[in-house]
């Protein structure tokens, strides 16, 4: 009985919980409540994944309004992968948040923080679950608005300007998407994505559709920080509270990529997107530039969170590169890295959160010799870093393997070399942190520090453990990603 409503529950549970959270007086209760909700959404997600795996794409007519007039929630394997990413990271970050965020923001504001967190979760899950283009825009704005608030909560006034910068760029992006959706509606009279994909081929050659395509692509590219539209990202990640950096880095841009996948493959269809509009070549070009340039920029950062932010833009480039190939292998590689990069970056930002809690800074120049005082934290950072570089037995290696393989399959060997060069650059920027933390003599300030509390270390190591597990036994992720890619590619074929 309940299982039939799983797609709706996935969104409704956190949505309804958000105002409840606001009403709770005691911040600790708000935290416990949000924690419970995040675990419930994870449970729902797992059930939903099992259900979709067993019986195929789940379609849910919201409010029992018949599709395509009503809003349809539609969950296929590509959505399942995203749902799992979002809820897993959400569930792991929550236990961590109490000590970390309690240290970084005023106790009075904690309920507000958890309310925004739940709204953010709602928005992301809504984007992934919905099958309606306009509904997608609404959820996108829910997640964006709450993320602006979350980022602005960071300590230090630069968090405010970072949030405003993101707000301006994010709103422009969202408005572009809205224009695109409006033009699509003009031409087809429908907002349901499946319906759109049926009706679009009839009008595919009109200029309006092309313009719509361009608006959507540019709009989404801003949201997912595709180079060179990434300018909001480094500041936002750097100045946000530690938990927020971890959560946003792992999920928000990934959801943007999901929107791109949906529009390219499901709505417009693979033949229009990649053959008529040649978006594949453009994506690969931008992705290559992103991979190389941001990895280079990351090498020269002194703020570790900013370094990780630039590295994120590069890794988004990896994912986009895979998608730009528009082959099953390429899209699979992109989706595998979607998942793997989420857990890698999540764990790295969580490790930095541990350091920020104790040290109050994530500048390299303040971190001399910190590994002696915080061995577990730094060990987590090194392991996560190795995964980012793509050393075997870590999830990052699996991604690299799939991506290089996909690139070689179509014979683009210079891209393979590019990917490997950027892994080497990854080695350099990760190793700068390692050398500072392990080889410099600790100063007076560092020697007083103690290891981060278990409340922070356990979630961090849980993500690291996930990382190692999926490095040794990647079957689950590659299986879901492969099926997701097959669904996406298959739908595009007329």
């Amino acid at each position, binding site marked *: 009985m309940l299982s039939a409503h799983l797609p709706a529950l996935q969104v409704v549970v956190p949505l309804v919980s958000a105002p409840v959270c606001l009403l709770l007086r005691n911040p600790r209760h708000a935290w416990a409540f949000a924690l419970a909700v995040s675990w419930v959404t994870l449970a729902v997600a797992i059930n939903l994944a099992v259900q979709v795996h067993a019986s195929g794409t789940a379609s849910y007519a919201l409010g029992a309004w018949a599709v395509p007039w009503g809003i349809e929630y539609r969950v296929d394997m590509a959505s399942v992968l995203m749902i799992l990413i979002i809820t897993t990271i959400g569930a792991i970050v929550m236990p961590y948040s109490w000590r970390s965020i309690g240290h970084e923001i005023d106790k009075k504001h904690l309920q507000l923080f958890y309310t925004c967190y739940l709204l953010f979760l709602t928005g992301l899950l809504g984007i992934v679950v919905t099958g309606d283009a306009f509904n997608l825009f609404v959820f996108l704005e829910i997640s964006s608005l709450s993320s602006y608030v979350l980022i602005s909560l960071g300590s230090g006034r630069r968090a405010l300007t970072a949030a405003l910068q993101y*707000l301006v760029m994010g709103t422009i992006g969202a408005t572009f998407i809205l*224009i695109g959706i409006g033009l699509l509606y003009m031409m087809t009279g429908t907002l349901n994505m499946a319906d759109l994909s049926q009706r679009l081929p009839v009008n595919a050659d009109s200029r309006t559709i092309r313009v719509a395509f361009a608006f959507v692509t540019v709009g989404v590219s801003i949201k997912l920080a595709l180079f060179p539209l990434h300018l909001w990202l480094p500041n936002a990640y750097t100045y946000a509270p530690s938990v927020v950096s971890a959560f946003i880095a792992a999920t928000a841009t990934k959801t943007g990529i999901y929107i791109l996948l949906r529009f390219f493959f499901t709505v417009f269809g693979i033949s229009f997107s990649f053959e008529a509009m040649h978006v594949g070549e453009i994506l690969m070009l931008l992705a290559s530039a992103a991979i190389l340039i941001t990895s280079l920029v990351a090498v020269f950062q002194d703020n570790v969170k900013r370094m990780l932010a630039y590295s994120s833009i590069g890794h988004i480039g990896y994912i986009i590169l895979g998608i730009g190939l528009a082959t099953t292998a390429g899209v699979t590689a992109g989706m595998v890295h979607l998942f793997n990069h989420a857990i890698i970056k999540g764990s790295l930002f969580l490790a930095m959160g541990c350091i920020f809690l104790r040290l109050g800074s994530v500048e390299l120049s303040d971190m001399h010799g910190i590994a002696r005082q915080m061995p577990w934290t730094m060990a987590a950072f090194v392991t996560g870093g190795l995964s980012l570089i793509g050393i075997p037995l870590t999830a990052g290696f699996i991604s690299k393997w799939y991506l290089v393989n996909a690139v070689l399959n179509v014979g683009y060997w210079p891209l393979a070399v590019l990917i490997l060069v950027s892994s080497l650059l990854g080695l350099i920027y990760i190793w700068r942190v390692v050398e500072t933390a392990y080889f410099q003599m600790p100063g007076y300030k560092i020697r007083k520090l103690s290891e981060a509390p278990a409340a922070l270390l356990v979630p961090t190591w849980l993500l690291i453990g996930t990382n190692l597990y999926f490095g040794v036994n990647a079957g689950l992720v590659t299986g879901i990603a492969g099926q997701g890619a097959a669904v996406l590619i298959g739908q595009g074929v007329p």
Partner: protein
Amino acid sequence: MHDVMHGVLGLYNYWIVIILMMTGFYTVIARPNLVKKIIGLFIFQTSVFILFISMAKIEGGTAPIISEGARIYSNPLPHVLILTAIVVSLATTALALALVIRIREAYGTINEDDIHVQDEEA
């Protein structure tokens, strides 16, 4: 000649949309004053609302209320959508203004260039 006139005047709603959109966009990019930026952003969003509303208009159509004698109705769906979008845009503007107030408290200015200078100094 007629075609050109039709292109310019017949599609006047689109011209309004484009002019508004560019005005807003320009303000967002070119103005260092954060409040003006936000006003620009709002204008930018509003232009899209007009795009939606104007496409709902069907020549000769009436308000979509079932009544005697009315055969053609305007499409009500874009109106509904835009109602939602207006709420979103209002929330965005409110949040942006709230942020500007906080920025003013923290920096003592709402001029982007001054803020940038202060950040560089720090």
